[in-house]
């Protein structure tokens, strides 16, 4: 174990409940693991209730019902009701696919606090292409219904090279739909986004232009709409403080019950992520190898170990370090102090070359067939 028992362990605050990997959409930047098709089994209703109860008791209060598409779980209203009874502030993170007015009302009655609807682009053609499913019109209707029934409306748009040119129209759409919160999430290159990176990573110029437009809009709608802007860390010279530090704040439970310190942690070798069927949340959080692995600073190598910024960014993201350098103990290569920092420029150059190539290879969509082929 890389961590140490002497570290002061803070309780979880955010729980991400990935109810299922099933999803009618096929977004090529999906955050689910590439090999998700291997993990078919799902926790049952009683397992989830126990997880919610145990995590709440430890102090978790923000709860996201996610997936896959969480609406494919028939017991969602029951879980929402259980969560509300425990005092969670709960969020349904959905593609909107399959969400009817009846269901929106049912979930409201069960105590759901807000709904985050994702839209892939500002036009039907691009949205439906990226989602791999005809869904644009329905998503817009869902956004209206979410508003109509008094939920705060959180619109989420993942930004990448295929839609970054639509930034002005995306912002216009958010205003038109009456979004209270708009999450502009520049793609993070893990999982499916990692294998599609050459096709998704924008150029620095594209990114800077889009950011400028988003910034001006943010000022214009201040007080009416709150914008969460997720920066694309490939164009930063310091890494993000991933997960607010490993095992300090965030707890993800995967559909099969695997407990993860972040939703990508399954990709890291040798972590032996514990399962909620075998252990309580308290045991998992406090005692498991996986959750103690990167707690504190003892696990760090140089240049992180002696870096005066380590308490600010915790050496960046472990999954990104592993994906880009093959070493999960290394500094996140996004950091300009990392000896592997050149891989970032290489990724940027490779994406640019791909954009200029005559026959650009096609996107690999997230579906079970591709998952089995790739794992």
């Amino acid at each position, binding site marked *: 174990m890389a961590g140490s028992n002497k570290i002061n362990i803070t309780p979880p605050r955010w729980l991400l409940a990935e109810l299922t990997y099933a999803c009618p959409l096929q977004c090529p930047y999906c955050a689910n693991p590439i090999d998700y098709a291997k993990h078919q089994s799902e926790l049952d209703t009683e397992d989830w209730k126990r997880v919610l109860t145990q995590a709440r008791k430890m102090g978790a209060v923000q709860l996201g019902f996610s997936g896959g598409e969480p609406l494919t779980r028939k017991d969602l209203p029951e879980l929402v009701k259980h969560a509300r009874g425990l005092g969670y*502030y709960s969020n349904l993170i959905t593609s909107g696919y399959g969400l009817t007015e009846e269901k929106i009302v049912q979930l409201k009655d069960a105590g759901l606090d*807000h709904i985050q609807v994702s839209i892939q682009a500002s036009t039907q053609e691009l949205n439906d292409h990226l989602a791999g499913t005809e869904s644009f019109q329905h998503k817009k209707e869902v956004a209206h219904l979410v508003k109509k029934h008094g939920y*705060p409306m*959180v619109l989420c748009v993942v930004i990448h090279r295929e839609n970054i040119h639509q930034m002005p129209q995306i912002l216009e759409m958010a205003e038109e739909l009456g979004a209270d919160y708009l999450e502009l999430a520049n793609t993070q290159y893990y999982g499916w986004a990692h294998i599609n990176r050459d096709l998704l990573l924008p150029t620095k110029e594209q990114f800077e232009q889009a950011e400028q437009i988003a910034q001006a809009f943010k000022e214009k709608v201040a007080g009416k709409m709150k914008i969460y802007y997720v920066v694309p860390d490939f164009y930063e010279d310091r890494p993000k403080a991933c997960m607010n530090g490993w095992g300090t704040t965030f707890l993800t439970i995967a559909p099969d019950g695997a407990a993860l310190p972040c939703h990508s942690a399954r990709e890291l070798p040798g972590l032996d992520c514990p399962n909620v069927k075998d252990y309580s949340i308290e045991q998992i959080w406090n005692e498991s190898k996986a959750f103690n692995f990167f707690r504190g600073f003892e696990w760090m190598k140089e240049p992180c170990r002696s870096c005066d910024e380590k308490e600010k960014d915790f050496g960046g993201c472990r999954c990104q370090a592993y994906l880009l350098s093959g070493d999960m103990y290394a500094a996140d290569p996004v950091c300009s102090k990392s000896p592997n920092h050149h891989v970032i420029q290489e990724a940027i150059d490779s994406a640019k070359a791909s954009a200029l190539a005559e026959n650009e290879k096609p996107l690999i969509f997230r579906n079970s067939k591709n998952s089995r082929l790739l794992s």
Partner: protein
Amino acid sequence: MHRLQWEEAQHKNVILYPEGMVELNHSSAEILKLCDGTRTLGQIVSDLEQIFATAGLADDITAFLEVALKNGWIQQN
């Protein structure tokens, strides 16, 4: 959209909203609890001065309420 609640694990009142949480100190929580849509600013000030057995809180309370309003924690009728 925002929910104020006591968190036993943290021994604190918190405001919960989409994607966020603000931890409140004791006096901030006491001010917000009185923002129930029925009291005027004057009443809130005098009630709090009574609770804390002190005077001259008007400026501090007004400053805090301006922050709360700007963040959408409260609404102005």
